[in-house]
């Protein structure tokens, strides 16, 4: 049965991104929306849109029953989940299939398998992918000290002692050398017992100052898996990616190929289909370890599209309709130039990145060579309080990393969002940091630097800014007063624009 209409089970920029692909492919689009999203860009962009009623995610974009009702009502024959919300929910994928809809993503069993940290790790080990060295079985309280020492020595130092039942940092201890091990295990066991009622712990090698590098891949329903050139996502604030790029700086072709092979092996072992991403940690010696798999389209997919020329969303749809991957594996793995993405959030970077929802009163979006803006908002839209505060992704492409970086800086200068603060000033600062310019990245650097600079403004206000603001304020007040006077005088308010243009034209002669 040919696919004609896709329901996009998401909102914001990613819903718009997917609808653009649908429109390019001649497919119809159905949007869903919460009460506050009625005027949102993704709703107005869609061919048809249907209300979910309510605002909280649990009443709207997470409601499988409502979404399936809308699919039935609208006659959609496929569902694209985007990222976030229900994108990695196997029950949703299953419900779509049972309702006779094509789910644009992997099968429910694969979502379940790769969604669990432990089964995903087992799958990676089975596929021969390196994982962070650690103990294979729990170190239970009856394991004697000598055996504990032997197990830890085999893992290597520094290592982390973690509670098997753990979470939230409880029952977790760093051990830098063998001498402090036994004490650390004793403390971790007692903390774990107190917090989770289970004293079992395990050891995992501590990867110091790791880089986060990931491999995008596409897999069709006929057994072909194509890994793409890597993305570096090491610029993170509190474990959230803020800047991504492709290819990774300081990354050899040999390393790229080994990582891509490992990722493809994991995907094959998992029986993976559609678009997915395998995340790795990379240590200072360029050794890499499987971290997890994301069974969906990623936020940062555009950087891969920019350097390979492949439209990942169109391929997701084509794979879902059963087409064979006809891409050249060499094209997918060979970057053409360099791309950088900044995630623009409605947050005030000068107030510890506090979310600042509100109405966008003015907007100027950058353009020009190498610039792509994947935005979910427009002037007049009120960024709601209920969902993630990302409003746009700005992507810059250049023939090399430095050109991409300079283009991004130029575009950030063109970008204006009025009415609410955004993280744009933070990016102008970040892209000028010496470590970023050199491409010396790791996942801990940004938090450490933010801690150190403690609230200093990202773009300092200079006298030139103040002078311009003074002149602008005076001019604005003066023009407003003059308009008020003109409006009060009969005959002048209705002066024709054509007459004004003619007078200005005469002055130029």
């Amino acid at each position, binding site marked *: 049965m040919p696919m004609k209409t896709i329901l996009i089970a998401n909102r914001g920029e990613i819903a718009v991104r997917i609808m653009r692909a649908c429109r390019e492919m001649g497919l119809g689009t159905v949007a869903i929306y919460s009460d506050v999203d009625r005027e949102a860009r993704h709703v107005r962009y869609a061919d048809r849109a249907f209300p979910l009623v309510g605002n909280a995610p649990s009443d709207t974009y997470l409601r499988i029953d409502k979404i399936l009702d809308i699919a039935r009502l609208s006659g959609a024959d496929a569902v694209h989940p985007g990222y976030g919300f229900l994108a990695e929910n196997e029950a949703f994928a299953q419900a779509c299939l049972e309702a006779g809809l094509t789910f644009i993503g992997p099968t429910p069993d694969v979502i379940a398998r790769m969604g669990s940290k432990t089964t995903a790790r087992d799958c990676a080990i089975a596929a021969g992918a390196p994982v962070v060295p650690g103990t294979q079985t729990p170190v239970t309280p009856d394991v004697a000290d000598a055996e504990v020492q032997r197990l830890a020595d085999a893992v290597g130092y520094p290592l982390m002692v973690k509670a098997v039942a753990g979470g939230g940092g409880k029952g977790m201890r760093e051990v830098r050398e063998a001498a402090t091990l036994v004490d650390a295990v004793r403390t971790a066991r007692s903390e774990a017992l107190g917090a989770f009622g289970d004293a079992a712990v395990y050891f995992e090698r501590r990867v110091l100052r790791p880089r986060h590098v990931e491999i995008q891949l596409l897999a069709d329903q006929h057994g072909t898996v194509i890994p793409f050139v890597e993305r570096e996502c090491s610029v993170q604030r509190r474990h959230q990616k803020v800047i991504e790029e492709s290819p990774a700086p300081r990354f050899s072709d040999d390393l790229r190929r080994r990582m891509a092979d490992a990722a493809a092996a994991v995907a094959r072992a998992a029986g993976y289909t559609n678009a997915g991403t395998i995340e790795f940690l990379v240590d200072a010696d360029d050794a890499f370890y499987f971290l997890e798999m994301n069974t969906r389209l990623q936020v940062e997919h555009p950087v891969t599209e920019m350097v390979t020329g492949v439209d990942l969303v169109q391929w997701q749809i084509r794979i879902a309709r059963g087409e064979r991957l006809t891409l050249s594996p060499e094209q997918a793995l060979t970057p053409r130039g360099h791309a950088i993405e900044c995630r623009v959030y409605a947050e005030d970077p000068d107030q510890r990145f506090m979310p600042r929802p509100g109405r966008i009163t003015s907007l100027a979006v950058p353009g020009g060579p190498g610039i792509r803006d994947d935005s979910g908002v427009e002037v007049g839209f009120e960024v709601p309080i209920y*969902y993630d505060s990302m409003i746009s992704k700005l992507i810059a492409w250049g023939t090399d990393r430095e050109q991409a970086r300079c283009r991004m800086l130029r575009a950030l200068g063109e970008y204006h969002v009025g009415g609410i603060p955004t993280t744009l000033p933070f990016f102008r600062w970040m892209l000028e940091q010496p470590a970023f310019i050199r491409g010396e990245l790791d996942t801990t650097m940004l938090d450490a630097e933010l801690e150190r600079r403690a609230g200093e403004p990202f773009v300092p206000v200079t006298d030139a800014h103040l002078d311009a603001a003074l002149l602008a304020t005076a001019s604005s007040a003066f023009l407003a007063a003059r308009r008020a006077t003109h409006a009060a005088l009969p005959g002048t308010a209705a002066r024709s624009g054509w007459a004004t243009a003619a007078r200005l034209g005469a002055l130029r002669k």
Partner: protein
Amino acid sequence: MRLHIEQGGRVRQVTVSSGALPGEVALHLDDTVLVCDVRDLGHGRLSLRLPDGSMRDVVVEMDPIPGHRTVHVQGVRVPTMASTRVRRGASGVAAHAGPLRIVAPMPGKVVRLPVRPGDRVEAHQPVVVIEAMKMENALSAGRAGTVREVLVQEGMSVEAGRPLVVLE
């Protein structure tokens, strides 16, 4: 037109009049006259051409409080306050003495109130935690002081601008 403009913690006097050519605005500032070419592009957007030819595209947002504006210039937001009369004391921008009200910067839910009336707080110490956009946001005192009043309770939903805690 005579204006008192407050920005960056200081007040300056500016006299504004029309220039000789269309679009020209003459600004008398201290002992100098700056003739700028100012074009109003609508929706608060102004294109300024300074006497030395420097171009400044700015966006002037009118704040809800009369006379208060936020000027966006080269990616920086500068709050300003213009008035045709001299005001006694400083406006909200520079006030340091007297009670300090901590207001909700966004709609959300109060999840924690770590302080009680009578507590002594340091500058930057969190006094109320609000949940909005699925994130917890600690609001801190801008300066040291003593908590005079706590105007909300944990679990309460608050709209933007609602006073939460008063310090003195």
